[in-house]
């Protein structure tokens, strides 16, 4: 089994754990773990810059926002937690099985490349130049998404001082 295969299996386990766990904080840790493994995969596939961004934003910044949000919430009572766990297992037991089955089917599919390969010149632009010199608009978009996320946290989780 190759290293990539092992990493992909860990990635799968981390994502399933993220979805299945009943604790928000554990879900955040699972998500961060997913991002870390994805980063390693990106390095191994020769995309170090994408890896750096994945690590800094998805494993770094986003979990910080999530943890801040989780700190505004209340823990479930132990009784409720047991019920919630049971419900979740009953609802999603098929999920890991389905993912493995789909993976097995996909490995059997042979795809023929039916288009001319992209010229190397088209792919030669430095990703840093693309991000900082050519795609300013996307940076504006990212700022706007982050702002929307912050507003979401404040609207849903921050107590309204006038309601105290």
């Amino acid at each position, binding site marked *: 089994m190759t290293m990539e295969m092992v990493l992909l299996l860990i990635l799968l386990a981390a994502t399933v754990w993220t979805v299945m766990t009943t604790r928000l904080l554990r879900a955040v840790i699972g998500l961060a773990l997913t991002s870390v493994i994805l980063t390693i995969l990106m390095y191994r596939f020769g995309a170090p810059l994408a890896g750096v961004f994945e690590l800094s934003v998805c494993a770094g910044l986003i979990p910080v926002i999530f943890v801040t949000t989780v700190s505004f919430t209340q823990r479930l009572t132990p009784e409720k937690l047991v019920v919630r766990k049971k419900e979740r297992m009953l609802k999603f037991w098929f999920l890991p099985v389905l993912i493995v089955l789909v993976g097995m089917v996909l490995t059997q599919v042979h795809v023929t490349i*039916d288009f001319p390969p*992209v010229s190397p010149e088209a792919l030669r632009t430095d990703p840093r130049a693309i991000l900082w010199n050519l795609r300013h608009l*996307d940076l*504006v978009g990212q700022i*706007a998404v982050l702002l*929307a996320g912050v507003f979401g946290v404040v609207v*849903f989780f921050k107590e309204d001082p006038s309601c105290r």
Partner: protein
Amino acid sequence: MATLLILLPLAIIMVLNLPFKDAFKRAAPFLGGCFYLLQAALVVFHPAAFWDDIYNPLEAFFAFECSTDALSLVLFLSIAIVGFVAVLVGAHALKNPRQRFFLINLLLLATVGMNANVMVTDLFSTYVFLEVTAVASFILIAMMKGEGALEGAFKYIILSVIASVMMLLSLALLVLVTGQTSFEAVRAGLGASPESLFVKMAMILFVCGLFVKGGVVPFHAWVPDVYASAPSFVSVFLAGIVTKVSGVYILMRLLVSVFGFEASVQQVIMFVGALSIVVGALAALAQRDFKRMLAYSSISQVGYIVLALGCGTPLAVAGAAFHLFNHAVFKSLLFVNAQGVEERCGTTHMEMVSGLGSRMPVTGWTSVIALLSTAGVPPLAGFWSKLLIIMALLNASRYGYAAVALFSSVLTLAYFLSMQRRMFFGKPHKGMENIREAGPVIVGVEIILAGITVGAGLLYPLVLEYFILPVQRVVG
């Protein structure tokens, strides 16, 4: 300078959230409203210095790949009108200054996303700004934290994420084939491999993602829940413009600028459009809640736009753009009516209110104007856009689809007249004899929107010549 329409709302949000924001809390609705008025004025008066990009000081700081044309102008005006209405109605409905403040911020953020989507010429940027609008919309839907609204927002998030995954996968395939994401480069790349399975998969995935975002049958399950459970002022914004830009306009732009009108794609889009018209209208007939009925009506009217788009001729695309504008106006008007009724009666259930026409005359009459325009009754604006669509379908020898479009208008009239009879005609229910007309803000907005519907209908030659027919050149 048109990129200011992206940067200005973002700048307003930044200013509103400066540390001394308490001073700005009261000014938020005013600043938001002014921005939408400015955007509308820029479209109507069309100053060349702003739109033609002869002198653009922003170029020194930002490298934005954007362009505008006649189709963009229709969308900018629709966004401005619906945004202005949402600001007025929302600021009136929300008594808590904090909620009002966040509403304005979120409306402006969603507008950043929509304005950018109208201008961008790159598929990845399209995706990024779709997400901006979507995230702001989730929060808007659930911001009152009602059980129904939270459930609606959750459904919207899940389906929206599925749509986003489809679009991202499509983008990955297109980059694999073409190596680029700009509209021009992708179009050229697709031209080099027209029969590629990868290309076809990419097109199907992107179009399906947009169908989900636009709430078109069979991807419409989230629409009634979201529109009915969200506060009416948010439904105005969502039904009036958000789903139209996120789903329909981007589909329009991609077909015109990237994918082209291939026969098989056209067939699928026309079929989906016709299905939406009929399913939406039949489902609307069976509804007992005013807002839920409006949601199904919205699905049906979006069907008209999609059907015309699938036809693909310049006249059909111009008709689709005109109907998109009309839909933004009359659907906003109907949701404002719903807000007025909800405020006064505490419900929008049609069995629980009646005889409101005598108690709320302005709401009743503007509702009649909106419903007649939706059904396509002359001389209102909705009649002219439907006429353009049906003429385009007949010119393209799509007689079956033209018949569907024509007869579904009768269905539209049926479900709206049934609503009007139940809610506004007859004697008021017990306990509703003392209901008063909606507040001055609601009444004012109703009159403005009804005025636009009537005005665009009566001044049809002017609207057609200066606003709608230039859209044909985008296709031609």
